[in-house]
């Protein structure tokens, strides 16, 4: 198999994952937050692929397909919700959506 040791990929995907998490916590725009969630999912895909290739069995690869389809479905639904919000409040800034508190 390729000579790059597995750890590099894992560190990369861990890094990608933490960037995704940081994006979700910091950014204000709903769409950007949603993109960061997608980033987290993709970092999981990368880990899965790495393990699958280094472990030699294909379960990881198969899993990645399912994750991708689910991510697609989630994207569709998520964007629909964000559009619905935009129609009502003319804004996508998460901080302004806080009718329900305490």
């Amino acid at each position, binding site marked *: 198999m390729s000579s790059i040791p597995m750890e590099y990929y894992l560190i990369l995907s861990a890094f990608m994952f933490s960037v995704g998490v940081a994006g979700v916590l910091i950014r204000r725009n709903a769409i950007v937050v949603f993109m960061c969630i997608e980033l987290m999912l993709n970092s999981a895909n990368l880990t899965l692929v790495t393990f699958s290739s280094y472990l030699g069995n294909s379960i990881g690869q198969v899993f990645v397909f399912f994750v991708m389809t689910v991510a697609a479905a989630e994207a569709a639904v998520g964007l629909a919700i964000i559009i619905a919000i935009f129609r009502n409040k003319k804004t996508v800034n*998460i901080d302004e959506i*806080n009718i329900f*508190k305490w």
Partner: protein
Amino acid sequence: MINLIYLTTLLPLAGFLINGLFGRKIKNEKVIGIIGSAAVGISFLVVLGAFIQTLGLPAEERSNTVELFSWLNVGGLHIKFAYLVDQLSLTMSLVVTGVGFLIHVYSIGYMHGDKGFWRFFSYMNLFIFAMMNLVLGDNFVVLFLGWEGVGLCSYLLIGFWYDRKFEKGTTSQAAKKAFVVNRIGDFGFLLGMFLIYMTFDSLNFKEVFSRAASFPIAESTFGLIALFLFIGATGKSAQIPLFVWLPDAMAGPTPVSALIHAATMVTAGVYMVSRASIIFASAPVVMTVVAVIGLLTAIMAASIGLVQNDIKKVLAYSTVSQLGYMFLAAGVGAFSASIFHVMTHAFFKALLFLGAGSVIHGMHDEQNIQKYGGLKKYMPKTYVTFFIATLAITGVPGLSGFFSKDEILWSAYANGGFVFWLIGAITAMLTAFYMFRLVSLTFYGKERFDHNHVHPHESSAWMTVPLMILAFFSVVGGYIGIPKVFSGEHGNLFEGWLEPIYAPAQAKLATYGSHTHLEEILLMTVSVAAALSAIYFALYVYGKKPQIAESVSNKFKGFYNLLLNKYFVDEAYEAAVIQPIQKGSEKFLWKIFDVKIIDGMVNGVAFLVESGSGFIRKIQTGVVQSYAVVMMVGIALALLWLILSL
């Protein structure tokens, strides 16, 4: 006849129920009166029969018990509802039913026209029922049953005219005071009973006293039991610490004062002490305490009596002081003498109260003796009987008072010592003085009442006949207990009659010092002389020159006020005990402790949770980002735990 003794309690109870339940419907006063008096009269006859039957029996078989039913048997405690018929209880029952019967007859006349007539007679019968239980009881619990029962009846009867004023407060306040002070006494009595049960494992008289004589019990236990019992006695018989209720008990109708607060109830304490003579005898320290308290009460009460202006108050204080004499006798070991004095005192004190009652009746409820004067010619019968009773109480030789009082003074001298005799004699002198002050202010001298709307008249036959009978007994009553010095060896019948009861106690007591008859006669003459001079002095002061009394009272202004206000004992109790408890429990216990502290804590916890929840809910800011942050904090902690735990 002896085993019919339960009739003596059953009949008064029946009288109480009949008058109590149907009294309101039997409008006719005479019928109610007859029922009430008959109940007591028949019981008197039954007691008399039993007395005669017991007289017939040889000395050692004279105490037998009549068992009714077993009241309580729990664990080691077996209490039967039974009556003990022996010399002591017979003597007391004779006094209770005899004097009681006469007073019932008297009150038919006295209470004439009172709308609570039926209620009065039902309570009086209830009192006789309770008193007979007290006297006849064969164990401490039945005695206690009677003890509290008489306390209840005195409460009911003192507060009989519940809507009338009495001195500062109302009659019902006086009644409450009587009951509560009695209850304090009963508290001591209860503890005594518990200690007896603990040491002797029984409360039955026969068992307790036989074990008291035989068991090797430490003197301190006897002392404690005796002390507790004596506290009970002081509560009931109005001795030094707990005597404050008796003067206020005068709020009740006069027959009540005569029956309860002179003849019978107040002597319950003396009866109890003499019944438990063996216990007292085995605790010499407590004996001296009893004697000293008796003595102090006697002289203190006599001194207060000097200055009282209400006829019933004077008699009340005289009762307290005579009770002091009885306890003095018991304290120095002359138990039979104290019971003898109980009997004679019952006769003449009941007579004095009934006489005072007919005077008050005649003077339309005026009780201040300063407003009397010269009633001799208006009420001859009352005057004569009253005068005889006064002679008896002052201890003029030949009448019953002399014999019993002298016996007590002599045994005080023989056992207690000269100081006891001296104070006793002085008290006798004071008694003579205030009694004759009372007689002269009431019957002699010029009439100090305004004539137009007060015209005194002799009371009806209902009232005067009992007076005469009592007068007869006041004279004759003394002869059955003539002291040995006059009658020689076989003389004192009364002492002989009671001797078997006190044999175990006398055995424990130090024997009499060897005193000659000569000393006895000498002392007797000295005390009589003192009494006679006091009588002459009183007649002289109040008969001829009333202004001497004024000048004396002005000169010793302070002392006079002290006596007038009863050494301020009531006010002292009020300030020292009642107010602090009342104010303390109101201000501190209830308002602060209960409401503020405990409730405060409970509501505080509720408030804490409430405000906590108000505070924590603020975390929910509504912004999605903050939710994600909280999640991350959670995840970070989970990871931290993971790292730490590995």
